């Protein structure tokens, strides 16, 4: 009888511990969770999402020949629905010739210059963003999967260092708002955790599509710090760290955000 009770107690203990472990699950939240139902509906419905206008542009660009040899993305990569599946979820990734990580937009531009021999797009150009949105869409629903690549380690470490470093006249680090105070309010808005799950996003504040670098540069301005220029290694390193911080979270691209 005592043996049976002891066994029961042991089973209960195990069950409770497993329960506690499950409850301690993922406390990470996408910015989607802080949006009003109306804005969530705007993202969740492809017939309503303004970003889908630009995805349609991106689809056209995918098939559009460019450069002196008149190659399109499709010429080498075929149907994006298959060839680009999961690609966005693995960026930023290491680029051998540049010997540094590049984000998805930079990769698209590099392909355009190196393979299509066409003139590269400037940062935040509508065409580049549209193509990026189209390619990123092909990873929607997939888990963010940073590459297991040791060449990225020093860059990611610097990204994390920058994430925790106080900057600007307001002397704030990313970590203070997005780790310590995430979920609380700043003005009328809820502070998100800052996971790059939906880029490029249609941001209502911009009334346009924009990249993660644009968003981060906005944050630099927000703390009254000088924002690194588009394409700066500091920004890609931050992107790399943010991606590993969000590893496993589903891609939502192209998302809508306030």
């Amino acid at each position, binding site marked *: 009888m005592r043996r049976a009770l002891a066994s029961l107690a042991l089973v209960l203990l195990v069950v409770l511990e497993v329960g506690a472990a499950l409850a301690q699950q993922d406390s990470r939240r996408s910015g989607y969770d802080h*949006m*009003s*139902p*109306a*804005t969530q*509906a*705007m993202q969740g419905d492809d017939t309503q999402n*303004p970003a889908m206008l630009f995805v349609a542009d991106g689809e056209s660009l995918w098939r559009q020949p460019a450069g002196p040899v008149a190659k399109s993305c499709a010429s080498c990569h075929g149907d994006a629905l298959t060839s680009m599946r999961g690609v966005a979820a693995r960026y930023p990734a290491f680029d051998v010739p540049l010997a540094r990580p590049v984000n998805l937009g930079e990769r698209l531009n590099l392909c355009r210059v190196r393979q299509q021999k066409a003139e590269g797009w400037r940062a*935040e150009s509508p065409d580049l963003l549209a193509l990026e949105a189209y390619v990123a869409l092909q990873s929607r629903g997939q888990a963010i999967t940073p590459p297991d690549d040791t060449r990225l380690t020093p860059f990611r470490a610097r990204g994390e260092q920058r994430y925790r470093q106080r900057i600007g006249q307001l002397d704030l680090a990313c970590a203070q708002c997005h780790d310590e105070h995430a979920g609380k309010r*700043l*003005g*009328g*808005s809820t502070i998100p955790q800052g996971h790059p799950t939906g880029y490029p996003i249609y941001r*209502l*504040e911009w*009334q346009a599509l*924009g990249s993660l670098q*644009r968003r981060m*540069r*906005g*944050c630099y*301005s*927000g703390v009254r710090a000088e*924002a690194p220029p588009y394409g700066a290694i500091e920004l890609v390193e931050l992107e790399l760290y943010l991606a590993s911080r969000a590893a496993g979270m589903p891609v939502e691209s192209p998302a809508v955000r*306030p």
Partner: protein
Amino acid sequence: MPMSLADRPDDPDLYRRGVLRAGGVLVALAVARPVLADANELKAAIAAYTGGRETKPGRVTIDVARLVDNGNAVPVTVRVESPMIAADHVRAIALFNERNPERDVARFALSERSGRAVVSTRIRLATSQQLVAIATMSDGTLWSGAVDVIVTLAACIEGEG
């Protein structure tokens, strides 16, 4: 019952409160003038649209988030109770705002072919304000609905791109 200035004029706290109260009244008047001006402009815009005809409150509902995420793109749905048959339907819906640079937001034309009187769009709201929708029925009668919306600015004001 709060004491007035006259009661205990040599009490510094009461005196301070009295001055603040008087100042408060002045401030309230200064703030109230622009608000009243906007409300009057809204009335005038609606009157211009309706031609001064009687407008009954009712049958019109404006579906909008009471606290919007961002004033640049606020989803709005206007619904009007109506059988939407040839003999009795909504001909037009006009949407007005109180505090944007212009009162008009959008005007919609429906018919008995519409089947239902419901229209959705996304609008810009410069600040917290009232929205008013006026529905014109096929028999010429006018109905209205109104809603108050709170709009806050983005917390982090960023520079150009």
